Every structure is written in structure tokens, then in C-alpha cells.
């Protein structure tokens, strides 16, 4: 049984009771009341993403503060994953996808013609919904990215540092040669986090990183995310309200909108604010309806 530690940020709740709660009823929003946010790391201005002629998300403007956790929430199909993938140009891999508007990372538009998407992805890493280690050893999984960058000598150090950073080192230090697939689901996901941070990004995007995990593994990842804010900016997509409330500093609520002239359904950003504000006094009634479970 994994040991469950409780960080100062959280009221001590058992994993089971946390998961049992209905969305929005007894949300623990922690003590992360913020007087002021950090400087902006990523700025989206009027971002619209289309697949062919279908508009998946329309007109999103959003600021992501540095070294904080921003959660993207909303009903399924409202374009959260799509928007997340535009932040590190993973959408380039979908031939039909097109992005309008601007996405600025440290003030630089990552969609400028002379920007190399490969360089963008080295700085803005990503963790996926399903843990997806390579069918290689634990060591080789973490070393994969650094090796791409030609690192040879300090590889052992990087692997150890990344695994420590992902709170996985103690569990795997004696079996680095074993297949990454031999680990449990939660360990695999932390391995994927270690793998992502091994290339030394400063932003990490996570697309429902806990949806395939059990409650205890989920809590461990959430704790890890809180710890990681000392070094990384994190953007997380989640459909778990409590998760957004527990881990994030800011929350952006998206929904599917049909109120446009063409009558087509596309995702829109309803509002973005401090997580505490969103969960206690959302200014848009759609947000409130969603987080109290009356919708979606």
C-alpha cells in the first residue's frame, strides 16, 4: 500500500472520501488564496482552432501565469485537449488542424513562420491521458529525450534527477533496467512525468493525467504537481472538479456554444479566474451550473 502523505495545502481527507464527494458540494479549495499571480508565461489571444472547416474552439484569450497551475475544465468535446495541444504545437501533427490568433510563450509567438515546433516542444512538454511509457527500460524511457539532444555523459545524473523530481526514484532505483511497462499505472504516469521533465522544459501540459488511475495514485500525482510548481508552469485538463479545485491556482471554464450565427457547435472559454473564485462565486451562471453538477 502506498503511503499517503498530506501536504500543508490540503485538509487531511482520505482518498476514498474525496472521490465520493459530489462535484461542487464540499470542494476543498485549499489555502491557495492569491493576492497576486506570477508574471504571465503564456498568453493566448483570440485563438481559434479548426479541424478542416469544423471550428473546435473559438476566440480563446487566456493568460497562463508562470510557475502556477492552470486548470482547463468543461464538458467533454468543448475543445480542452485541442486547446492544450495548440500550446506546444502538437496540433501540427493533425494534418487538418489550423490555428488562428496568437499563442505567445515568453512574449514570442510560437506560430511565427520561423519558429521550429521541435524547439517549442522541448520547452513545453506534455503528459498524456493514458500512461504511455515506451516498451523500453525505465532508464531508457527517461534518457530518451536527453539522448535526442545528444546528451551522453551526464545521462545518469539527469535520469536520477528527473526520477527524483517525479517522486519515483525511491521506488525504481534498484530496477532501472526493468521495462517501464512493468510498473503500476500510477508509477507509469510518474515515469512519463519524469520523461517529460528530463528534457528540461519549463511548461508541462497534462491532458487528464489521472483519468486512468486509481484514487491513491491520483493523489500522489496531484501532490507531485503541487511540488512541481516550484520549477514548472503547469496547464492541466481535467474533468474531475475536485482535482481542479485541489491542485490549480487558476481555472478556465469552457463550454460548447451554439449561439453563433452559423449555428455550429464550437468550444468557447466562458471565464477564467482564481480557482477559489470560480468555485465559490463564479460570475457566469453556466460555470456555476457546471461545477455544482447541474450540467454536463
Amino acid at each position, binding site marked *: 500500500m502506498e503511503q499517503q502523505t498530506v501536504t500543508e495545502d490540503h485538509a487531511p481527507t482520505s482518498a476514498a472520501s474525496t472521490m465520493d464527494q459530489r462535484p461542487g458540494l464540499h470542494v476543498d479549495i485549499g489555502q491557495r488564496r492569491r493576492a497576486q499571480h506570477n508574471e504571465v508565461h503564456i498568453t493566448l489571444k483570440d485563438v481559434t482552432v479548426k479541424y478542416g472547416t469544423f471550428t473546435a474552439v473559438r476566440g480563446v484569450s487566456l493568460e497562463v501565469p508562470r510557475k502556477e497551475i492552470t486548470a482547463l475544465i468543461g464538458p467533454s468535446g468543448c475543445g480542452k485537449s485541442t486547446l492544450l495541444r495548440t500550446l506546444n504545437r502538437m496540433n501540427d501533427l493533425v494534418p487538418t488542424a489550423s490555428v488562428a490568433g496568437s499563442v505567445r510563450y515568453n512574449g514570442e509567438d510560437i506560430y511565427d513562420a520561423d519558429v521550429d515546433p521541435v*524547439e517549442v516542444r*522541448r520547452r513545453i512538454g506534455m503528459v498524456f491521458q493514458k500512461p*504511455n511509457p515506451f516498451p523500453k527500460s525505465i532508464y531508457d524511457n527517461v534518457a530518451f529525450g536527453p539522448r535526442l539532444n545528444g546528451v551522453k555523459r551526464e545521462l545518469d545524473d539527469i535520469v536520477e534527477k528527473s526520477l527524483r523530481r517525479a517522486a519515483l526514484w525511491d521506488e525504481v532505483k534498484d530496477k532501472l533496467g526493468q521495462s517501464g*511497462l512493468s510498473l503500476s499505472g500510477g508509477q507509469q504516469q510518474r515515469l512519463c512525468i519524469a520523461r517529460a521533465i528530463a528534457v528540461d522544459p519549463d511548461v508541462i501540459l497534462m491532458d487528464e493525467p489521472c483519468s486512468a488511475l486509481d484514487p491513491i495514485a491520483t493523489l500522489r500525482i496531484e501532490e507531485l504537481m503541487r511540488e512541481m510548481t516550484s520549477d514548472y508552469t503547469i496547464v492541466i485538463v481535467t474533468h474531475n472538479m475536485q482535482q481542479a479545485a485541489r491542485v490549480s491556482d487558476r481555472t478556465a471554464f469552457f463550454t460548447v456554444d451554439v449561439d453563433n450565427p452559423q449555428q455550429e457547435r464550437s468550444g468557447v472559454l466562458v471565464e477564467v479566474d482564481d480557482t477559489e473564485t470560480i468555485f465559490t462565486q463564479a460570475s457566469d451562471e453556466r460555470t456555476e451550473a457546471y461545477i455544482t453538477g447541474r450540467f454536463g
Partner: protein
Amino acid sequence: MSTTLTTPEPSKLRGIGGGRADRLFRGTLIFAASSVLVILAAMIIRTTIEAWPVFAKEGLFGFVFGQQWSVGTSRSEVTGTYGAFPFIYGTIKTSLIAVVVAVPLAIGIALFTNEVAPKWLRRPLAYTVDTLAMVPSIVYALVGMYFFRLYVWGPAGQVIADSPLTSVPIIGGFFSGPVLLSSYWSAANILAIMILPIITAICRDVFAQVPEDERNAAYAMGATRWEVMSKVIVPHSFSGIVGGTMLGLGRALGETLAVAVLIGSSQRWAGRLFAGGDSMTAVIANTFADAHPEAIWALLAIGVTLFFITMFVNIGARLIVARVGGRVGGGAVI
């Protein structure tokens, strides 16, 4: 308050014809499956019996490593000398070279088809390569004989033989001239073309099975398309590639016609690549028409030997695939 329950009608669970039809069907299938074994066993036993006098005279070692092949004319006993080494050597040499030429090409074609080519081009490309597999052997033999040999492999061989490669110690001699038009080299090349479709098809299949998630993980770490291909897709497909290679090797070992016309039919084996030689299938195809009975036995002995070599290659392939597949925990298995 009580109610009386009525007994339901029986639901006719006991059908009549079903069981018997099942048994008949099963019997047919068992017969079909076992007939394969019977045919295989009959072929092995029959050819081994026919070939036995030759093995008995030469001994297995003498047959496999003997250098001299001079056929006799008897109908009842073995009077000639039957050392099959030049043919065994030629078969293995041409097949291995064919694999060395074909595998990188097949991997390249499969990667291009699956990963690089625009969507609309992928199917036509795949069909084109698959069509190569439908071309009859005799057509390869003719095209090899009257075109490739003269205008491609001959000149290419000359370039290699004139290159500094020939002065590299140890391996230099292998690439030295003179370049004959009918040679191990020409035979290996036609074999490479002939096994290309099967290896390419298998590579395409196993590449397509690499999970999207794994590619995305690599892309998300800043891998280029080339790096995703070389560091994710090919390693993930390793066991499948090995399987496809072995399958191709098996085909190359058994291919007859094209090799028979292109290998040169020289009964003295040579270490050089560009020299003429002979192979197991080629010597059977080229000499059985006017062979006396004892020479037929000897040719059958070659056939039996080839069968066992091919079988060992296939068993080896399966072992390698199973081991490699198990070690990396997954991957496509042939």
C-alpha cells in the same frame, strides 16, 4: 396471500440435428488439418528414402562439405561423387546478401509509405510494392537476364570492384573483380527484389501497429519526424522486422528459376561476390532433366538438405521473435 405458480412450458433445449452436424463439421476440419501433416510427412519420408543411398555413401558430413560433384550414370547404385558444398554455399551466400540488400530497402519503403508520403499516395504505393509479389518467377528471371544484369548490376558491380573497398584488408578480396554478369551478385540482387514485397508488407504492418501514444510521447519531447521513425517506430517493431527478414530469407533459400539463370552455373565455388557459382535449387533445376537415376537421388538429397535448412531458419526466426518480443514487453510478433 398466496398465489399458485404455473409450471412453464419446456423450452425445447434438446434439439435433434445440432449435435450430429457439429460432429460432422468437426470431423471434416480434423481431416483437413491432418491431411496437411500427412502430405508433409509423405514428402519428407519419400524424398529421404530416395536420397538415402547418396547419404549412405558420402556420409552427412561428406555430402554437406564435399567439394566435388561428379555424377554417375548407374540406375541401381551410387557410383559418382556427391559433395554438395558448392551449392549449399551458393544458396546461403546469395540468400544472405539478398537479405542484406532487401531489408534496409524494405524498411525505407515501409517508413516512406506509412509515415512520410502524403495520404493520397500511400495506398497506390503499397499496392505497387504488393504487385511485385505477384510477378511470376520466370518474368524476374528474364528481366534479370536481359536487363538488370546487363545495365544495372554489371555496371554497379564494376563500380564496386573499382572502388577503394577492394583494398580494405580481409573483406577487400570479396569485392574484387573481374565482374561476371552471371554471378552470386546477380542472383542475390534478383532475390532481393523478389523478397522485397513480403518484407516491406510486414514492415508496413508492424510500423502501423506502433501506438499513436508512443509517437506522440516522442514528438512531445521534441523529437523530429526522423527521430520518431528511427528511435520509436523501428525499435518498437524490431521483432516484427526480424520475423519479416527471416520469412524473406526462407523465400530466398527456396527460390529457383531466377537464381538458376543468373548464378552462372559454375560448379566451383568462389569466395568473391562477382564470381559465378551455383546454388542448391539452381543445380536441381538445371540438371535434373538429363540426370540418370543415381544423379536424381543426389538431387533429392540436395532437396532434403534444403528443406532442413529452411526449416531451421524458420524455427530460428520464431525463437528470435519470441525472445525479442518478450524482452521488450510487446511489439508486433509474426
